[in-house]
């Protein structure tokens, strides 16, 4: 690894005005940035430190974390969603991986930070997926659309409070007429006359 993460960390600490919480080492380094400064941090990492690839942008819902085990939630008070930006620094000459870094950003409610689409065009689809699955919005994308689910879908299926048995009424009424159909007891083909 030819990139020194400690100097990058010092620069980012100065940018954010406070030392960032860090965990992991080497390629598994994770820093926690305030959501409001996530875009600025990404821009700085891209322009000054060679993190030229957004490998992934995803979200974590920590509602009810530790409800059964009693483990303390890593979420700050009131926060529920965490955005995770995964960055790679690829060597422009060789294309080899110089460094890898993840940024955590705790989101206030479900109102996310500004879009990173101007820095990394691939963020467009990733943000649409985050919106589709978790309902975390991005402040400068008011008309964001779903990417995986169909437009008629109501709700955000990867939220912890999305009912696991919930059915969407796209295909017929849920209380339609009973159908002749296979059950778990059927092990052989069945023909319907």
């Amino acid at each position: 690894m030819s990139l020194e993460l400690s100097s990058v960390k010092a620069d980012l600490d100065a940018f954010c005005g406070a030392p960032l919480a860090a965990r992991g080492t080497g390629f598994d380094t994770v820093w926690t940035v305030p959501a409001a400064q996530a875009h600025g941090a990404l821009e700085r990492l891209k322009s000054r430190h060679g993190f030229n690839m957004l490998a992934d942008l995803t979200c974590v819902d920590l509602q009810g974390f530790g409800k059964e085990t009693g483990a303390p939630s890593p979420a700050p008070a009131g926060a529920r969603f965490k955005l995770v930006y995964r960055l790679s620094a690829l060597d422009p000459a060789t294309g080899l991986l110089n460094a890898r870094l993840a940024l955590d950003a705790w989101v206030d409610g479900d109102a996310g930070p500004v879009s990173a689409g101007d820095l990394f065009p691939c963020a467009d689809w990733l943000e649409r997926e985050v919106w589709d699955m978790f309902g975390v919005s991005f402040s400068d994308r008011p008309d964001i659309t779903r990417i995986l689910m169909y437009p008629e879908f109501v709700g955000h299926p990867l939220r912890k409070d999305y009912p696991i048995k919930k059915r969407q009424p796209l295909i017929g009424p849920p209380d339609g007429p009973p159908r002749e159909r296979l059950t778990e007891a059927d092990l052989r083909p069945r023909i319907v006359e």
Partner: protein
Amino acid sequence: MEQDLSAPGIMTSQLDAAIGWARKYSIFQYPFVTACCGMEFMSVACSHYDIDRFGAGFPRFSPRQADVLMVVGTISHKIAPVLRRIYDQMAAPKWVVAFGVCTCTGGFYDNYSTVQGIDTILPVDLYIPGCPPRPETVLEGLMLLQKKIQAQGRRA
């Protein structure tokens, strides 16, 4: 029907059987393959199990030319309207085979994105359970379907 049909040259009672016989051994199938059951479908279709022994070896990738819609693999809500349109484009007489447990009931994909059985959107003639079904199971089901076709039975 008090007419005397015993005159020479009239064979009305045999025509249905002849048409049924011709249809059941010349199934043109439309393979709607979306998931891992497709692997098992390939082994049925290839020479080890050789679905062509039953006259069903000819896949047509146009629904206009197909008699049997083989729905092979998980159907999500997003692809469901496409499947329904393909079914509507097929000319009658047509039959639908639900191949694998995902198409029969949704299988273990009991979640927000999967159609819980294609019989919620199409009339299904033959259910073949299994995850995925053995080729022998598919051939047994195919023989049941041929029996139904011979008897001129159909749902659409």
